[in-house]
């Protein structure tokens, strides 16, 4: 910090918030960003004509005779471009006078002792550094007393005059404060990066300044920096709470589904879960292969879910999150639409897919619906799946989706090595699958493949030549699965 710099004058707002005007009654407080260059104690209205521009005009004596004199003084102060006007408390400021002050945009303060206020103002504007240090100290004290990010950013917005502040994530989401702060562009902007509780970059404190001066910017930046540590602490608390709650619910759900008794059911009802009626389960699952355990995304997923569906529970399970609707008129189709919209629109930490179960009654039905939703979600997470799959549409085919396809494919490549090494392996594999699908009917297989039956017969001969026996019942199931696995696996055959 350069000590040789001359500090810029304090603004009216600074004098109000931490200076001699703190106890004054305030009128027309919309325009407090003007700087106060001087103080003028005025006993005659005519003296206002001689005031320097940007003065704080303090009325006393004959200049403060009543409402009319105050209004005349407001007018003269406006003509002289005064920073603000102070009047003694003997004058009752009624609505018309306050309206005039607002119309002229002259901030008006009513103080008990004008002469004393004038002295204090003069002292404050002659030592701006001390005044700003007091502001900084005051903010630091208040930061320590606030527990949420919103309250901490609120301290800056209410205490630091002429500054609007917001806490903004990298993608522009406003976490706390006034979003207007983030919309400002250009030089009247101060930014301070705020780390999360883990020390990694988390968000940015953005402040928009109404008045710009190097020393004022420095003051604001200091205050923003002071807010960083308390903000990080609040984030830690905010992140722990949903994680803790999710862990509790996870345990409760597990007990409910595996060993339900009256106590567990009561506990479940106590946390707001609905156990009676027609349930439709929904299972959310990370799409494809999201690196790392999905649990770290739990707070973000739960918060997004609550924003969309209010108090509907979302309980973490292995590899996903579970919820259920009860007594929904539109059934699974309606829920599929809503979940689809949610996945498309919500701010999710990782891409998700969803599976939806078939309606089931009471706790047993819910347990079944949950299993179905998990299977459907497995299908949805596979390559080529829809983001939202309904078990009702999939039926037992969902079972296939749960097989370790890559493992089977790897085994098949060994077991069927002759077939795979054939020059026309792909043609033969497709024909084999069609024949198995059609229970060995060459006619039906020809229709499905779009070729002549003789062609199918020819391919069947070549398949047999590679050592594959379609007629052996103990081989057919394994062969069928192997074909599907080879066709579904990511890696080329």
């Amino acid at each position: 910090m350069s000590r040789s710099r001359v500090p810029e004058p304090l603004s009216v707002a600074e004098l109000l918030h931490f200076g001699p005007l703190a106890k004054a009654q305030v009128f027309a407080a919309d325009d407090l960003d003007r700087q106060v260059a001087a103080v003028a104690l005025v006993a005659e209205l005519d003296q206002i004509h001689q005031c320097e521009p940007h003065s704080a005009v303090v009325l006393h004596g004959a200049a403060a005779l009543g409402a009319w004199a105050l209004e005349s003084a407001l007018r003269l102060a406006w003509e002289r471009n005064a920073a603000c006007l102070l009047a003694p408390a003997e004058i009752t400021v009624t609505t018309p006078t306050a309206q005039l002050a607002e119309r002229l945009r002259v901030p008006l303060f009513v103080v008990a002792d004008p002469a004393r206020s004038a002295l204090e103002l003069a002292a404050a504007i002659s030592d701006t550094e001390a005044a700003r240090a007091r502001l900084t100290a005051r903010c630091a004290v208040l930061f320590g007393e606030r527990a949420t990010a919103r309250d901490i950013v609120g301290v800056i917005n209410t205490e630091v005059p002429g500054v609007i502040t917001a806490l903004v994530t990298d993608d522009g989401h406003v976490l706390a404060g006034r979003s207007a702060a983030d919309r400002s562009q250009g030089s009247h902007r101060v930014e301070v990066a705020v780390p999360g509780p883990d020390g990694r970059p988390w968000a940015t404190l953005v402040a928009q300044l109404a008045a710009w001066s190097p020393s004022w910017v420095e003051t604001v930046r200091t205050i923003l920096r002071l807010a960083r540590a308390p903000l990080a602490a609040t984030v830690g608390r905010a992140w722990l709470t949903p994680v803790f709650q999710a862990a509790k619910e996870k345990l409760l759900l597990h007990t409910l589904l595996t060993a339900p008794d009256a106590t567990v059911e009561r506990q479940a009802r106590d946390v707001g879960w609905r156990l009676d009626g027609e349930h439709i389960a929904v299972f959310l699952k990370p799409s494809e292969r999201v690196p790392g355990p999905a649990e770290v995304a739990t707070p973000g997923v739960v918060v997004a879910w609550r924003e969309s569906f209010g108090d509907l529970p979302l309980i973490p399970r292995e590899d996903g999150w579970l919820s259920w609707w009860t007594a929904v008129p539109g059934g699974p189709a309606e829920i599929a639409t809503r979940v689809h919209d949610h996945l498309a629109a919500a701010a999710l930490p990782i891409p998700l897919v969803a599976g939806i179960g078939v309606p089931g009654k009471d706790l047993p039905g819910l347990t079944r619906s949950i299993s179905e939703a998990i299977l459907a979600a497995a299908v949805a997470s596979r390559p080529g799946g829809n983001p939202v799959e309904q078990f009702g549409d999939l039926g037992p085919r969902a079972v296939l989706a749960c097989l370790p396809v890559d493992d089977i494919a790897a085994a098949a490549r060994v077991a069927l090595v002759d077939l795979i090494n054939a020059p026309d392996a792909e043609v033969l594999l497709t024909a084999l699958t069609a024949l198995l699908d059609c229970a060995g009917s060459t006619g039906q297989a020809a229709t499905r493949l779009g070729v002549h039956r003789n062609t199918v017969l020819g391919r069947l001969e070549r398949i047999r030549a590679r050592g594959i026996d379609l007629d052996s019942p103990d081989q057919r199931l394994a062969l069928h699965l192997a074909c599907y696995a080879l066709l579904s696996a990511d890696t080329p055959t």
Partner: protein
Amino acid sequence: MTITQITAEDIPVLLAGAQLLCSSAGSIALDGYRTAIEEVLRRNGPVPLVALDDLPPDALCVSIGALGGFAPMIELPPNGDEGVLAVRALEERLGRKVDAIVSLNSAGPNAVFPVASAAALGLPLVDCDGMGRVLPLMIQTTYALAGLPIGPLAGVGLAGDVLVLDSSEHRSELLLRAAMKAAGGWLLCASYPATVAALRPAALRGATSRALTVGRMLTTADDREALLAGLTRIMGSRVLGSGRVIELGHATRTVGPRIYPSVPTSIVVGEYGSAGRLIRLEGHSELLLAVIDGAVAAAVPDVLCLLDRHELKVVGMESVGLGHHVDVLVLPVSPMWHTPAGLAMAGPRAFGFPVRHPREEEA
């Protein structure tokens, strides 16, 4: 039309016109009092109204005017003979007969006392006065401004007390006020005895006939625009603004010694429309200062008055209420009042408002 005499029928008209020059002081009805004056005129016949220049220069004139409150006037109306007692007492003190009556101020009730006195004395009334409006002190006159002495003077109280006083102007005012209180609340005075020649530079001409003309307009008006246009034509009046009374208060203080027998009052008129200006009117028993959005727009000695927009009547400070729809008028007074001496005697500073009169700003 030249008015040459005043009859009993003219009294209500004269009172209506005189009301306009009261600067919104005392709009209460003085029915008993009016009846007494009309009775005097019926008994003695019409009063000739003469111009100052129609009289010989050495003719002796005295000013008739009352000081005191409205309430005592209502409680104890005059019988009409008070002027006779006062003039006779003064004649005795001066040692010569009075030739004509002039008005102290042809505004409010004081517009008709000289008529009654002239009728009872069988003397002509001179068409002039010494204020052109209402002012609270008897020494705030153009007569005094031109150097005429207020005394010797004679005052008559309600119970027939007769008082002859010969003192300096300021002591006369103090003594008269003390005597007025002791006498029951008001005193009719015959003061400023002067010849026509001495009155010529001091008097405001045509005061009574102007009050009659305006009174006729006010008593017959049924069209606001026409009335305002008429007032502008006759009085040079100007509408400062029109709106609704949004605040009434008594919070105003003034500087200097409290010489005025009245309480400070404040009226705020908000102009129509969302961007309407704020007209703050400050007064004692009459309106003295108009401040529009903080700028002094008009001030005593010019006449400020409120006109009810619907009933087309002058609104007095006693009857004005919140929500009243009014036009705020300013009626300029004679240029004599706008001289530095005139403003020193009856300008805003004389009433404790430390501001310049708008005419001073122009100068």
